[in-house]
């Protein structure tokens, strides 16, 4: 395995890097996360109990109530926002949520990030240029 670069469209500008948290399931704002801890709470969610605080959150996108953006804005105000967002399904909820969470965000990538990126990989997200660089977990100690 070597470094992988994905190209897409920047949604919210900015550049950060950090550890990935990946899910193939969409995430609910209202009733799906605890904004005060940054934890997924939805009962049937595969990441239930895990926190996205400080992680590069890689997921399909937003689902559920139109309060999505408000709940993710609250994660930022409470200091529990993800570090960046990489998503595949563009909706108004997702776009507005990324804007008010104010973290670099990228979509429309030329490879499926849900397949290419694994939880624990080191990911650099460039929301200004729409670029994602992935260092797989097993390369990080080399």
């Amino acid at each position, binding site marked *: 395995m070597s470094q992988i670069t994905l190209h897409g469209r920047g949604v919210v500008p900015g550049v950060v890097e950090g550890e990935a948290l990946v899910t193939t399931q969409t995430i609910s704002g209202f009733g799906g996360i605890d904004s005060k801890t940054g934890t997924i709470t939805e009962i049937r969610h595969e990441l239930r109990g895990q926190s996205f605080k400080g992680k590069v959150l890689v997921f399909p996108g937003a689902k559920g109530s139109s*309060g999505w953006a408000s709940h993710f804005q609250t994660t930022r105000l409470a200091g529990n926002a993800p570090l960046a967002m990489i998503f595949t399904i563009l909706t108004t*909820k997702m776009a507005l949520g990324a804007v008010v969470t104010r973290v670099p965000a990228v979509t429309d990538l030329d490879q499926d990030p849900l397949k290419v990126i694994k939880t624990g990989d080191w990911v650099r997200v460039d929301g200004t240029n729409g670029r994602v660089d992935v260092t797989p977990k097993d390369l990080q100690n080399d």
Partner: protein
Amino acid sequence: MQLTDDEKAIRDGSEGEARAHAMDLLVRYGIALGAERLVDTNSVCGGVVGSLPGRRDILPEDQRMDMDAVFSLLNLDSDKRLEIPRVKTMSYKLIDAVDMEKADIQRVPLKTQVLAKNVGDFCTRVGINKCNTCAPYQIGNVPVYGEHCAWMESSAVIYINSLLGARSNVEGAHSTAAASLVGKIPYWGYHTPEGRKADYVIDFTYDVQTMLEWGLAGYYIGEKVQEHTPVINGVTHTPHANNLKHFGAAAASAGGVEMFHMPGITPEAQNEAHALGPNKAIERIEFGRAQLEEAYGYFNTATDTDVDFIVIGCPHASLDQVKRVAELLDGKHLSANTDLWIFTPRALKTMATRMGYTESIERAGAHVMSDSCAALSKVYPKGVKVAATDSCKQAHYLPAILGFQTWLGSTEDCVNAALTGKWTGTLA
């Protein structure tokens, strides 16, 4: 993104700081969507944040009752406190935290009542109409075919997109607040002709008739198509508006459906091919008796048939629905262990009272409530463990938000449960 000279001027401050910030937020949101431009709107429905306790705690203590500060942060995502001017557009507020006339019965703490009044006074000052309903289209807020709107409540957006041919995406608290200040929203998604075309085909092979069946059909379809746009074939009659309201609300809460087509019934599709336009159907899905039963099975995970609390009016009940409940309750009395609350817009409660419906309902020991919602406002009688409702949307939220075992059934099943204290509903 292409901005007009007017839009640029507002963003640069020609109309003050608050509108400059609102325009900048809409531009950043438009860029995030990949929109090419903004579009004018004069119809905004949104939530004004801050009626429920908790949300304002993120502000410094001395700013928590300062609605300009609260609105700047929670509705406009501004780090700076902005002086909020009067809104430019026709703007309508969605559900509130409390029915002030029923605050004691709803057990709403005084602190919440103070917060809700603080929000209400702010709305009066800036000109946001306090309709306090999730179903503003039932009380005269009826957009015209083709009208560009910025609405937030998903059950209302799917209704106006599908039934009226108005154009709105499901907006959020921030985008509706910004839109009300500057009269703009990104031209994207359901605002565009191509964004309104279907990409799933649903074939009804069961003759969907009752409100419960329509709700279950919507829920099943929402689960299957998620945020896509279905065209529905095989509807045998012109459904009542109540049924399509429940169908859309269920589809929007199970998935993220924002629009559906029903050839011969909704205005933008003469037939399946027209609804699809250039799109090829991603999938063709049958909705028959087996699918109806499957959807019914998603609900009714409750085990205790002793029902404490019945919720009717999600989305807020129409006058017809209030009338129906009044007829079912007239001259009877609820079981001593059970409460029944029916939620309807304030304007319709006025009409219900004029017609004697409110009296029939309340003499039976039930309550007609406005401005609020059990699940969203988190209001319920003391000691509730088991609830029942005639709404898939409410049944979707009650267990998750309030932790109640929840039964789903017809309005008649629900009223029977209120009268006997026992759940006996079945899928007919």
